[in-house]
């Protein structure tokens, strides 16, 4: 392995990631690796100063110090696991979103670069891009270790955190190779079922990995079943944390053994990822034969739902996009992960028993509707940008902005409304909801997904990101922040009449709204906010169709 090649390639990969989404020359001047180093140093210094000041303050207050020292110990122990979790989450969400079309034409595939050189460079590049998080973690834990009087522990924490950070990037490399393998397994397979199976497998992999590498879940799992971290020796990703726990307790031999185990794990995973990269070097551009029947255009069933020919064509295309594109899988996985992450901590303590009681099911309903709301918001925000460079197909066709916006919204609502209804029915049955609660959940759910779809569409039409190389995001960073904020506010406003009806009598003993009034208020709010969002989306789509992105 040539270290010069590794460093040069790592630098090129990092620059490529930094500049991939740059807009305009002046902005891209800031997108240099040296800027990341400078930002890391500034963030390190600022975090160090703030945490040092806070702990100095806490150490002088006897009532607070036990809490602060406990928090410091927990942070020191869990930092490596947090670093691992972060790189995997960030890597999965962003690295795997690269479309296979560009991955297959990746220039490194045609250059004399070995798989070990590529993997090492890619791991270094990924770690470097996200190094600001490591910088914050290390800066925050240094004053904590000093305050606890264990500066040598910090050196151990720093080393293991860096190792976990690299391990996360290596696991991403392994997953990338595995996804290439899965894609090539489907190469030249036939049938629509193939596409559905591929989507389900990809979503399940994303959901499983994000839940499995979530340290909160792991710790909760261990506490529930075994009684804590002490006996979690069989989970290798927790070895760095066990090293620190044992070192803090003065058990040097155990600390040494877990430390050796952590480093060995890093090396083994690096070896595995190099072997996988060598085996699945170039991702195969998937070519699936969807049907073997002769072409016979049928009358679309969407026509019966009131959609015109043009609108139906766009809806069919977008539904196929959702099912068939690898980049779309993460947008389906995120709401599922968020809903599971919300429910799990409440479900775990009672694992082994059936979760019961209305409060659990009410919480589950809230989590699932939140998931559906996020799904509607995310998919609608990306619905314009996901056209990518192929947007010329729409811009050069006789499609008017109203048809475009209605078709895009309908695509999302055709999934989210039936899903909301199905979820309401299931949760109501399992949770034994009354008629009032059932209708409240039903109406609230439908209103929420409708509104989030149109708000997301308005933001997505105003801030589309059509760039596809190397990471497709479909909506600009500012757009996604704005969308999230607007989506949250509007979601809360929509469900507020039901919340006032349900909880105000319990909390304050006041009854301001009865159920019919809450229904009416929610419907009115939904109608107003949806109409405003729709009008804005149409005006933005109109601009887009007048001046196609170049």
């Amino acid at each position: 392995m040539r270290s010069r090649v590794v460093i040069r390639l790592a630098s090129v990969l990092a620059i490529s990631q930094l500049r991939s989404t740059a807009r305009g020359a002046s902005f891209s001047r800031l997108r240099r690796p040296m800027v990341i180093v400078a930002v890391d140093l500034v963030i390190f210094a600022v975090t160090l100063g703030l945490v040092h000041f806070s702990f100095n303050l806490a150490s002088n207050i006897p009532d607070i110090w036990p809490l602060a020292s406990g928090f410091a110990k927990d942070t020191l122990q869990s930092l490596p696991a947090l670093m691992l979790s972060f790189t995997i989450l960030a890597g999965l969400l962003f690295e795997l979103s690269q479309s296979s079309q560009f991955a297959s034409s990746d220039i490194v595939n045609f250059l004399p670069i070995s798989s070990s050189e590529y993997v090492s460079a890619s791991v270094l590049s990924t770690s470097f891009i996200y190094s600001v998080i490591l910088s914050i973690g290390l800066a925050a834990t240094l004053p904590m270790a000093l305050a606890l009087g264990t500066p040598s522990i910090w050196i151990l924490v720093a080393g293991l955190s860096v190792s976990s950070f690299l391990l996360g990037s290596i696991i991403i490399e392994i997953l990338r190779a595995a996804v290439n393998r899965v894609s090539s397994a489907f190469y030249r397979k036939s049938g629509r079922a193939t596409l559905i199976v591929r989507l389900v497998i990809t979503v399940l992999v994303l959901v499983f990995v994000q839940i499995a590498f979530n340290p909160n879940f792991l710790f909760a799992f261990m506490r529930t079943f075994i009684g804590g971290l002490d006996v979690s020796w069989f989970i290798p990703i927790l070895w760095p944390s066990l090293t620190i726990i044992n070192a803090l307790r003065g058990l040097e031999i155990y600390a040494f053994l877990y430390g050796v185990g952590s480093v060995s794990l890093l090396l083994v995973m690096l070896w595995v990822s190099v072997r996988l990269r060598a085996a699945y070097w170039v991702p195969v551009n998937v070519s699936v034969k969807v049907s073997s029947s002769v072409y016979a255009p049928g009358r679309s069933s969407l026509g019966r739902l009131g959609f015109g020919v043009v609108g139906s064509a766009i809806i069919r295309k977008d539904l196929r996009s959702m099912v068939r594109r690898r980049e779309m899988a993460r947008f389906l996985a995120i709401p599922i992960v968020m809903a599971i992450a919300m429910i799990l901590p409440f479900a775990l303590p009672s694992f082994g028993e059936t979760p019961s009681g209305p409060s659990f099911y009410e919480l589950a309903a809230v989590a699932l509707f939140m998931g559906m709301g996020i799904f509607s918001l995310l998919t609608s925000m990306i619905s314009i940008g996901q056209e990518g460079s192929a947007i010329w197909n729409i811009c050069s066709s006789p499609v008017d902005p109203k048809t475009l916006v209605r078709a895009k919204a309908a695509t999302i609502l055709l999934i989210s409304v039936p899903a909301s209804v199905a979820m309401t029915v299931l949760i109501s049955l399992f949770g034994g909801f009354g008629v009032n609660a059932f209708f409240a959940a039903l109406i609230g759910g439908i209103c929420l997904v409708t509104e989030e779809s149109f708000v997301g569409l308005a933001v997505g039409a105003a801030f589309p990101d059509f760039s596809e190389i190397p990471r497709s995001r479909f909506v600009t960073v500012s757009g996604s922040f704005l969308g999230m904020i607007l989506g949250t506010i509007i979601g809360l406003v929509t469900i507020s009449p039901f919340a006032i009806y349900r909880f105000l009598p319990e909390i304050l003993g006041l009854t301001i709204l009865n159920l019919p009034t809450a229904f009416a208020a929610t419907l009115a709010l939904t109608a107003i906010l949806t109409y405003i969002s729709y009008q804005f989306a149409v005006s933005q789509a109109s601009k887009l169709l007048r001046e196609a992105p170049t």
Partner: protein
Amino acid sequence: MGVQITLYISSAASMLGLRLGMTLLALEMHSVKKNFGTIRAVNDLALTVGQGTVHGLLGPNGSGKSTTMKMILGLLRPDAGNIKVYGMDVASDPLKIKSMIGYIPESPRLYEFLTGVEYLDFVADVHSLSPELKKERITEFLNALELEGRENEMISGYSQGMKQKITIIGALLHRPKLLIMDEPLAGLDPRSARIVKDLIQKLSAEAVTTIFSTHVLEIAEAMCDRITILYQGNVLAEGTVPELREKAEMPGSSLEDLFLKLTGSGDVRPIVEALAK
């Protein structure tokens, strides 16, 4: 009755902006300018193209050919000037203009997750073709361009040439009155390229106008009724090949030699010799 008919024809003709007694114009561009920031892509461009003609747009890379084509289609708004397609201002009714035009971009990006036939079905629906008509035309074109048997595969697995064929079919499905083709023959195998060339000539005979750009000057010389040479956003020369020879004072020379002289590219032999060393 006779007066009524005359009035009807004359008002219809004036509505379409046509001039009776003269060649019908498929395209009129006057004083069109387009800048991208500080870069002047098209400068004071004037161009007229008669109905049913095959008009070639030639020019070195970055001369403004693609920008001009996008402005005709309404994909880009000119900073100044006006563009009329069959007498209609491009900005006045973009949907009607788009439904009259078939467009093949320089590097077409298709919906890779659709199969070839699904993509064509989408394009046909967007142009509101009836199910019977779209089936007839899609099947006919797939057979003509030898894509039958591959039409149910996802486009992501197609070769560059197959993608180009799908784009060409998509542009022709709705029988446009004006075809705008940016390097339409790139990536096509010789047989398919021949089919497309013959098709353009046949459509021209049926009064379909074609504006196309190419860097293969032999093709332009063989196919185009008239040629416009663009250079740095300006029209350098315009006319038939014999007219261009006359302007360049190069009788009997090839279009390639004319092009190199007019664009100032000059003698390329010293460069070739230097590269070969």
